[in-house]
């Protein structure tokens, strides 16, 4: 401490910036809720995730100081999300481009009902609805 040349001077973010981010995060939450009640079809989830991603970016850049951090820390933080992207992209690109084998007890709805669509045709839905769905029928049905 006696040696002033060795003191370091971190970038000190002014309080109004923190307040602005704080308000933006609250507004973003409000918008997320409001938009959930508007029917955008399959876009609902996409919009919600885009807003969430925007909010997360604000937190990372300002609250977590990544905007003012060294290149090394910025690279480390970005890399984490790169790995996440690899995990999500390659797993989902596989899952979404192949047929699935139905799972006994879970099967009926899966086959007929892709994401975001209403109750699909199939009368088969009701068969396993005894509340516990142990449903030996469902197991047999698909083998």
């Amino acid at each position, binding site marked *: *401490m006696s040696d002033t040349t060795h003191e370091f001077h971190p970038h000190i973010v002014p309080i109004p910036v923190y307040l602005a981010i704080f308000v933006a995060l609250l507004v973003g939450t409000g918008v997320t*809720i409001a938009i959930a009640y508007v029917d955008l079809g399959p876009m609902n989830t996409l919009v919600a*995730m885009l807003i969430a991603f925007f909010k997360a970016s604000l937190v990372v850049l300002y609250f977590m100081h990544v905007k003012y951090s060294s290149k090394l820390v910025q690279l480390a933080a970005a890399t984490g999300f790169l790995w996440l992207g690899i995990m999500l992209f390659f797993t989902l690109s596989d899952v979404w481009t192949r047929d699935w084998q139905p799972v006994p007890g879970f099967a009926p*709805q899966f086959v007929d009902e892709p*994401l975001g669509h*209403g*109750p699909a045709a199939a009368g088969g839905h009701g068969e396993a609805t005894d509340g*516990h769905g142990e449903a030996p029928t469902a197991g047999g049905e698909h083998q």
Partner: protein
Amino acid sequence: MSTDHAATADHHNSLVAHQFDDAEQQKEASALGMWAFLITEVLFFGGLILAYTIFRNAYGLAWTAGSHELNVALGGANTAVLIFSSFTMAMAVHFAQLGQRNKIVLFLILTLIFGSVFLGVKVVEYSEKIEHHLVPGPNFQYHGEFADEVNPRNVELYFFMYFAMTGVHAVHMIVGAILLVVWLIPMARKGRYTSEYYAPIENFGLYWHFVDIVWIFLYPLLYLIGRHN
């Protein structure tokens, strides 16, 4: 080690461990280490979100049905509470940078209070789910508005993911609250943190903000599916 006076001075400075050249390098190293940990956390929660996405893709209506059993208002209020706590945490780091002890303590306590409110609301939500037999297991029952169209086993799977994701998130909150109570707040009161040395507060802040980010994603993913129906 030879004859550098500045280096010698730092060796006598207990705030800088002797493997570091100076306080700045030490701070950089601790931030980098914290980010390495947070990356593992990103991938940990990322794995849960991946499982969620695959199941939701397969059992979409069950996900809508399960989501409609959640309380949008309580979840939304909790999102706001967590954003408040992130803001107070950012302020604690800010005043640590300025070395203002009393304000560090004040904002750490506020962070703890908001975190506790979040967990309290979570307790209310979980107990509602228990009362309504929505906990996966032998007592699971689904009699909601989609009961005629959906296989309850699939709704049970939704609630499995709900409890796994929010439960692990709540564990992170509890760990954070414990660290505040037993470590950061007492040390801050003792005046341990100054404008030269506040890495524990900064790194705890990174952790706390990360947990906030997780909830920013969990809230729309779990509470807000198909609300326009």
